[in-house]
């Protein structure tokens, strides 16, 4: 695993997130659930807790966008780049953006939202890319069944280096 230079991390264990807008590809409830489960991937192995808020600013703002979307890192249409996120910090720090030129799905067609969201939230929490194939933080997308998804030891070591283990 890798962390970002300077090891940016959240100094609090209770983080908020807000789903700013939705993709038309999935029912909103499916998006809500995929995002909730993606955060659970990380809260299951650390002391972190995630609370959803519905207005105002949240630590992690989640949005779907196409092309240039105001952060200076334009998306590139269908395929290639799927999403990006920012390391922990004020303002745009922690935010996650998903390219709505992709076709987001809850299964094995096109791009699975749960898997990409879990990866991006790893960045939102301070993990950079891992070169371990099979790790969630590996940069290339590959489908695994979300129902049987398990965080790799590499990912777990990285996130627990930043936030410690979940207290029993």
């Amino acid at each position, binding site marked *: 695993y890798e962390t970002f*230079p300077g090891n940016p991390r959240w100094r609090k264990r209770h983080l908020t997130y807000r789903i700013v807008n939705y993709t038309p590809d999935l029912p909103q409830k499916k998006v809500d659930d995929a995002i909730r489960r993606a955060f659970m991937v990380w809260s299951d192995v650390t002391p972190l807790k995630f609370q959803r808020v519905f207005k105002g600013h949240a630590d992690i703002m989640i949005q779907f966008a196409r092309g240039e979307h105001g952060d200076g890192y334009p998306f590139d249409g269908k395929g290639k780049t*799927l999403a*990006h996120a920012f390391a922990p910090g004020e303002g745009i720090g922690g935010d996650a953006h998903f390219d709505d030129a992709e076709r987001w799905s809850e299964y094995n067609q096109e*791009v699975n939202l749960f898997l990409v969201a879990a990866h991006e939230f790893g960045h939102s929490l301070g993990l950079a890319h891992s*070169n371990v194939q099979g790790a969630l933080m590996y940069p290339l*997308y590959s489908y695994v069944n979300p129902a049987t998804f398990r965080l790799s030891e590499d990912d777990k070591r990285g996130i627990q280096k930043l936030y410690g283990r979940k207290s029993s």
Partner: protein
Amino acid sequence: FPAQLKLESSSNRDLEDLKAYLDRFFPLLTKTPSLSLEDRIKEMQRFFHLTLTGKLNAETKETMKQPRCGIPDIAN
């Protein structure tokens, strides 16, 4: 003659795509001296466990086409 021209233009495009990919995901860090293109290709091949050729071979091209996250692969 046209075939040759076509061949050149596609390899030029491949080269442009490669440089754009390297600039985006394996950006030259300010502190490292400017690496040769061959070294930069090797850096990417090393990260993705590809054969270290320093050349834009088929498996390197294939990796570049994979859907992925937009964050650089070397943390900077």
